[in-house]
């Protein structure tokens, strides 16, 4: 990998963005990459829009991804996925959980879907991660790990499944480990 790989994770505060950010950073480090991430805590975390930045490669200085320069946008919620189109360039892949957390403004999910399809086009992967995890594992909360699994097994993030699993083990509390490993591997079996 010659170029620095830029990931943006977006979602709503409380969806586990920081954990995901931490897992990817650790996995990149295990593979010998230099890595920098940036995240936000506090007020911005209270059910508001949250965005974390991850960059890995040979040598990385800044922890921030500039608009129009993301290689991958990982959206844990569809409205927040739409909000992240500012990071888009013609090559950016969008992996978005087709899950809608409504807020004050009256916009329908269908409208959001149409709005995000327009600019992202064929690079958009809308995944029913919440539904799949609920059905298969009985827990919606691991949908972010499922999405991460999807990105890894589809080679949308240039990291190996083993390093990510090792990072999951390092990051997750013991009692949730099995469930998260299952969610990660589920993305390999589900096509």
């Amino acid at each position, binding site marked *: 990998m010659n170029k620095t790989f830029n990931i943006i994770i977006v979602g709503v505060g409380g969806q586990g963005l920081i954990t995901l950010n931490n897992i990817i950073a650790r996995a990149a480090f295990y593979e*010998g990459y230099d890595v920098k991430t940036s995240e936000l805590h506090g007020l911005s975390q209270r059910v508001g829009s949250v965005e974390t930045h991850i960059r890995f490669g040979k040598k990385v200085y800044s922890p921030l991804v500039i608009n129009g320069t993301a290689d991958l946008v990982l959206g844990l919620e569809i409205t927040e996925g739409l909000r992240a189109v500012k990071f888009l360039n013609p090559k950016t892949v969008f992996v978005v959980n087709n899950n809608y957390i409504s807020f004050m403004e009256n916009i329908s999910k269908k409208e959001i879907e149409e709005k995000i399809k327009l600019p992202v086009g064929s690079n958009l992967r809308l995944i029913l991660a919440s539904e799949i995890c609920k059905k298969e594992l009985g827990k919606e909360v691991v949908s972010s790990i499922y999405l991460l699994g999807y990105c890894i097994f589809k080679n949308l993030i240039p990291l190996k499944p083993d390093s990510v699993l090792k990072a999951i083990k390092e990051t997750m509390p013991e009692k949730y480990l099995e469930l998260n490993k299952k969610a990660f591997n589920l993305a390999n079996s589900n096509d």
Partner: protein
Amino acid sequence: MGKNKKVLLGNEAIVKGALEAGVSFVSGYPGCPSAEIGDEFGKIAKENGIYAEWSVNEKVALEAAIGASFSGLKSLVNMKSFGINVCSDSLFPLAYTGTKAPMVIVVADDPSCWSSAQTEQDSRGYAFLSHIPMLEPADPQECYEFTKLGFEISEKFNTPVILRITTRVAHQRMPVQFENFKKENRVFQKGEFIKDYKRFSTMPPRVLEMKKELLEKIEKIKQYAEKSKVNKIESPRGPTPGKLGIIASGVAYLHVKEALEKLNLDLPVLKLGFFYPLPEKKIKEFIKPLKKVLIAEEVDPYIEKEIKILAKDENLKAEIFGKDILSEIGELNQEKLALALAKILEIKYIATLEYIATLKYIATLEYKTPKIIDSNLPNRHPQLCSGCPYWLAFSAIKKSAPEGTIFGGDIGCNMLAGVSPHNIQDYLFSMGSSIGIGHGIKKSTNQKVIAIMGDGTFFHAGIPALINAVYNKSNLLVFILDNRITAMTGLQQNPGMGKTGMGEDSPMLKIEEIAASCGVKNIKVIDPVNFKELENTMKDFLSKDEVSIIISRRICALLAKKQQNE
């Protein structure tokens, strides 16, 4: 990859550095983006023979550390930007007395105000005001190294050292190389306060002697800074295009490096690890061969101003760029730096319109603008969590307050009173100010005032304001949202909980008893689930001639969930 390398958050790296330096006394007040420092110490203190506390506010936190330092214990104080305003009253005399055992004070600013109301404060100015050395790390590796260096400088010169970080440093992760460190003594070792009036008491006329000693000390530290490796010059391999050099501090240095790579430029860079005192000789030596210098610093132009004075005094002819190109508002990034460099060097650079708009003026160059798509979505503002007891309390306040009531806002989760659907906030300033300002409005008008404040904020700065209101015969209504914890910053213990920062049992202080002893006559503690009672009490108290207080008491929903999982 050595086994002593781990991905760490900036704040985690500070804890690691402090542990290695042998810190044994930690105090602070939780704020964003510094809270994880105190959280982490709370967890690991006992097993490492350290004493750690969440203090009631930053002033007492600093004072506790001063006591520890005078008694021979190495200390670390942690706070967010506004914390330094609160503790400054004791910070300034501390520069005069100096420390006995070393002390590092971590102050975390929040450029772009990601998690801060109040102001976009640049706390670096306090270094000039107080004459306290200040170091500025750019990333977690430097957080670790500069914390250790801070203790070293403090030990060598008997001065506190401020470690100034920002959100993008505190909440940045990267692989950090550190030493395999094992603490030998895992039992908390007490010190001894040895009396030394001349040293610890700032009584005049001694105070002016102390000032003289302080200024002499700063001169010595300046010499030290001149030789320090953390102020480093990176020379280009070839000739310098446009004879342009860059002086960078903090996280702006990372953006500079990234921008240079992007533009394929090799320029000399002076990276300043010291903000105060500045290594003037090194700066002069750096500027001398240059025709142009860009100062890359976030928010206020402190370094730029210092360097402009220096250049004038030394008759250096280089043209100095800074806030004439880079905005004083908001954080920087590599794109803003790349644009600034392209502008100064008059080279073509394709940038996005959005970033061009952040430049103060645009050169005669033409910029092509790649298309950035805007989602045009309305903002998803921060909100109360689902199940938060404040939903009920806000709703009761809104329902029972007569038209025209003034709602005073305060800091913490309760400040969400200002957003939709609540919209009950007519002013918002600083910790405790809902009562202080509310009292002033009450005295100046015939309008009704409700000051809305959380439990943590009440303990922090609400009590003197409450006493003032009672003493000066106000009749505002103080509405305390007591959710049994300091929630916004990530669930930290406070005096109302009966638990210390290290998780030990302690006396549970009751807000109603404090209010009673402050002379408040109308006091009621209500569970907001009893909505009707809350409404009726509000109506009753709003018609009183004295100060009234309602304590709406129900546990934070996140805390309740956490306790269930434990």
